[in-house]
């Protein structure tokens, strides 16, 4: 937990380090060749840098990378990146990527710094325009770059999705890694709930997402101030694991409910993963005596990143949508507690009576009222229709603490709804066809299911304890399935290879090809019907 607390100043969604020196502002790429790789750099029309790498054994497919969300302003431990920082899907824990392996296979790679005038923030629409310019530039430079894999991670996913729908002629396959695959507002609502629940049970001074909406540096600092309050709580919990009784609200003080129960409830209401880097949700010790307490420590370990998503991305989004978007005046927190969760984690939640008492407190607590402009704005943000027919492959950690895997579930569900509607239209047209021409026209309406979601799984158990029974919260922990944008090289390459196949065939890979690429040991779930925890909103 100490490590997590130390990360307050270096939230995991930030990848630091520049991988490529950028030439001075110029519309034309500047290229050089080294060890069989031609590397080109330049700037887009808005001044953002881009980079392209094409190997000598280039096979005609370029992977266009879209990185995730980056705050525009610095804070301790974080400096907004300038220039291109990652060119392919990198691992944010090990700080490594598979660019060289991809180049060795003859894949081209390209990316751009998603910034305007040095500012990042939530800039999906600008990202789509920049990506279009990057693809055009690449194709102009390399006429044999005939196939395009449009891929990205986290907050880059909205750019990818909007681009694929807007420019299908420039898209041959879509890759969504640990993606904000649906409207960011769905998860921000839960992220903001975290702050609200913490304000009820742990620190009444927390304003959370009610503090958002300020412009520029001032707004950023207000958001950071809220995150710092969470950091302070985490510092204390890192020592006592939430064992002391609740101090807030007054009605529960002295009632015998440990803080950890409210912490677990908070995580469950938000839909946060109940596994973390070091906690498997199963293994017990003398001090972590029950599986649900293991899960509680997992929530504890995941909270910082989840809160950071809510507050930092939330602040950036509030600037885009023009006001406070968070409103929980109609939220029924009791309904957010899944029946399975209240049963499975009953002990960690201190039993039915404690659950009832805590939910009652949430029901009675004064709520936060959003601003109409912000609320409407976030609903309309980054509108995607899920109509892309291009082969789409998603990759998510089953216990991603920052962008929850329910995002991928929601995306697949939305695509499936579109597919089912088209299937019905197709079947109706077939049934009503009376002539050969009508029949042939109907046959052309047949939809194709072209979406595949892959999940990286944790080992079954991996929690370690000290001799005293305290959980070990340092070191690598799970080697798969946890963290944000943290995939092994084997997982990343499996993803890349499947995307390459998809771009060149127009189809998601066959089950045989998938099996070949996710063979035992890779840590990807062979169960293609796997469904992790769903989003709450």
């Amino acid at each position, binding site marked *: 937990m100490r490590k997590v607390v130390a990360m307050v100043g270096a939230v995991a969604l930030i990848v630091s380090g520049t991988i490529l020196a950028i030439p001075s502002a110029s519309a034309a790429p500047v290229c050089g060749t080294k060890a069989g790789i031609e590397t080109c750099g330049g700037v887009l029309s808005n001044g953002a840098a881009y980079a392209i790498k094409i190997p000598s054994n280039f096979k005609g497919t370029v992977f266009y990378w879209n990185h995730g969300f980056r705050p525009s302003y610095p804070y301790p431990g974080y400096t907004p990146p300038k220039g291109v920082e990652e060119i392919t899907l990198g691992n944010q824990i090990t700080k490594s990527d598979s660019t060289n392996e991809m180049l060795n296979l003859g894949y081209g790679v390209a990316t751009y710094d998603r910034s305007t005038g040095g500012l990042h923030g939530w800039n999906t629409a600008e990202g789509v325009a920049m990506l279009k310019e990057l693809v055009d530039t690449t194709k102009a430079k390399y006429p044999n770059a005939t196939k395009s894999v449009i891929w990205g991670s986290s907050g880059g996913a909205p750019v990818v999705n909007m681009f694929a729908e807007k420019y299908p002629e420039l898209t041959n396959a879509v890759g969504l890694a640990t993606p904000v695959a649906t409207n960011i507002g769905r998860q921000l609502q839960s992220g903001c709930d975290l702050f609200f629940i913490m304000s009820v049970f742990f620190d009444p001074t927390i304003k959370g997402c009610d503090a958002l909406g300020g412009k520029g540096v001032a707004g950023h600092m207000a958001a950071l101030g809220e995150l710092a309050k969470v950091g302070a709580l985490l510092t204390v919990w890192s020592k006592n694991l939430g064992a002391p009784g609740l101090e807030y609200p007054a009605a529960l003080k002295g009632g015998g409910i440990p803080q950890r129960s409210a912490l677990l409830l908070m995580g469950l209401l938000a839909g946060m993963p109940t596994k973390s880097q070091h906690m498997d949700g*199963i293994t017990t010790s003398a001090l972590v005596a*029950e*599986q649900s307490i293991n899960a509680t420590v997992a929530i504890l370990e995941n909270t910082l990143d989840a809160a950071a998503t809510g507050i930092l991305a939330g602040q950036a989004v509030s600037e885009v949508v023009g006001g406070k978007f968070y409103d929980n005046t109609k939220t029924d927190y009791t309904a957010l507690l899944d029946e399975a969760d209240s049963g*499975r984690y009953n*002990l960690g939640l201190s039993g039915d*009576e404690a659950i009832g008492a805590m939910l009652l407190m949430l029901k009675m607590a004064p709520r936060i009222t959003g601003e109409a402009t912000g609320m409407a704005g976030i609903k309309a943000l980054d509108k995607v229709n899920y109509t892309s027919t291009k082969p789409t492959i998603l990759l998510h950690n089953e216990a991603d603490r920052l962008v929850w895997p329910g995002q991928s579930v929601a995306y697949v569900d939305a695509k499936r709804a579109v597919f089912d509607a088209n299937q019905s239209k197709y079947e109706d047209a077939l049934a009503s066809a009376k002539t050969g021409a009508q029949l042939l026209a109907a*046959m052309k309406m047949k939809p194709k299911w072209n979406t595949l979601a892959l999940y990286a799984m944790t080992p079954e158990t991996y929690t370690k304890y000290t001799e005293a029974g305290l959980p070990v919260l340092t070191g690598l922990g799970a080697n798969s399935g946890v963290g944000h944008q943290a995939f092994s090289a084997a997982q990343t390459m499996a993803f890349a290879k499947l995307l390459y196949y998809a771009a060149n065939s127009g189809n998601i890979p066959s089950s045989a090809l998938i099996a070949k690429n996710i063979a035992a040991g890779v840590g990807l779930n062979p169960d293609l*019907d796997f469904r992790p925890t769903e989003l709450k909103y």
Partner: protein
Amino acid sequence: MGRLRLSYRQPLRLGAISFKERVNVVKFHPSLSKPGFLTLVAGLAVGALALSSLPASAASDPGITDTEIVLGMQLPQSGPASPGYNKVDDAMRAYFDYVNSKGGVNGRMIRLEVKDDAYKAGLTVSTASSLINKEKVFAFVGSIGTQTHISVIKDINRRGIPDIFVNSGYSGFYTDPKKYPNSFAGLGTYVVEAKILGKYLKETYGDKKIGILYQTDDFGRNAIAGFATAGLKFTPKETAATFIAGTHGSLGLVSQMSQLKAAGVEVVIIAAVSSATAVAVATAAKIGYAPKKWAVISVGADATTFQTILGAQGVPLATSAAMLTGVISASHAPAAGDSSDEFITAFKKINDDFNKSPSKAWDNNVLQGMNAAYLTTQALFGVGKNLTRKALVSYLETKGSSMSSAALVPLGYSKTTHEGYTGFWIGAYDASSVLKPVGTDRVVYTTDSGTGPVTVSTYKRPAMPVDALPKGA
């Protein structure tokens, strides 16, 4: 690495040939004139739609071939919750081995794949995944535990996998088939049992102060609801003592038993797991609390579990037997020690002949396992040769209430509820830890999980087939 399961709708098929392929076959057949081609294509289109609406063939469901049916089960085979429960799977396998020795079900041998979840829900989730994706089970059968099963029931149902004869009395699993359409109870619900037990206690000990110790979870909630319907109300912090499920071992339930003692409770009801019953009774003895009567919901009154747990704490068998003597409980089946019952006799023989477990000693857990396997076999026979998951669920909904079993009441299955046994008889443990009727005759009562009345059952249990092989209802 198991075979992959594709998750989404496959292309419209005409049997083994896709619609497009059929059109191409027609299109390039030189003998077909154009009008004939159109007519045929249209006909094929209609055929395609008609065929696509047919139920999947047996071959399309995992876990079933012409020669085998693979069933999956989850239970605690290890850990503190395992005593007693860990005999159920061996009993089921013994019965299935007996069925297989007689040629199986319509030529298919039954294979039971069992996973130990140690009563830890995280392991329930991972082992369910293994049963589904590696062992490719056709159905889940007889899985044990409310808190564990609640972690996987949604996913099992989402996938359309039958989840039959679940060993949990939590009514929430069964009373709304729209929610869990493939889950069917293997026990009566805690509500039904509490209503019947509550009525008896109120009528018999109405002049005594009745209190309760219950675990604050789905089990406890169900029981409280049933007792309330029976007219038994309890006062929190006085006649109602609670504990968080799973904490009884560490707490020792001292404060709870002291509370009931201080309140002057004369009849103590326990709605908790067997290990908690053992702790409560032992603690009461330690603090000098001797209520006039104990009454325990059946899953908390298993004699084997009770005595095994106390035995591990150094309590001699004779002492634990004495503690259990006179304790009131309920059962939907004949007592395991009832040698006059034809089901008991037959199951005991099968257990003797086929159970390979070193801990196969006959008791109520073995009876429950045998009975679940008997019901499963009956349902599989009942569906017939064209066995599919949908057909099995449909069979249970339409014929389940007519199925025979060792139970003295029918299963409550219908399209509107998947509740299990609809009644119980009340008994008390004798000195040999066998449950015996509280009166001179065994009276079986029946009711529902709602507010319906408790009445005497008129059910006539069907006779067991001579070969102990039920061929369907």
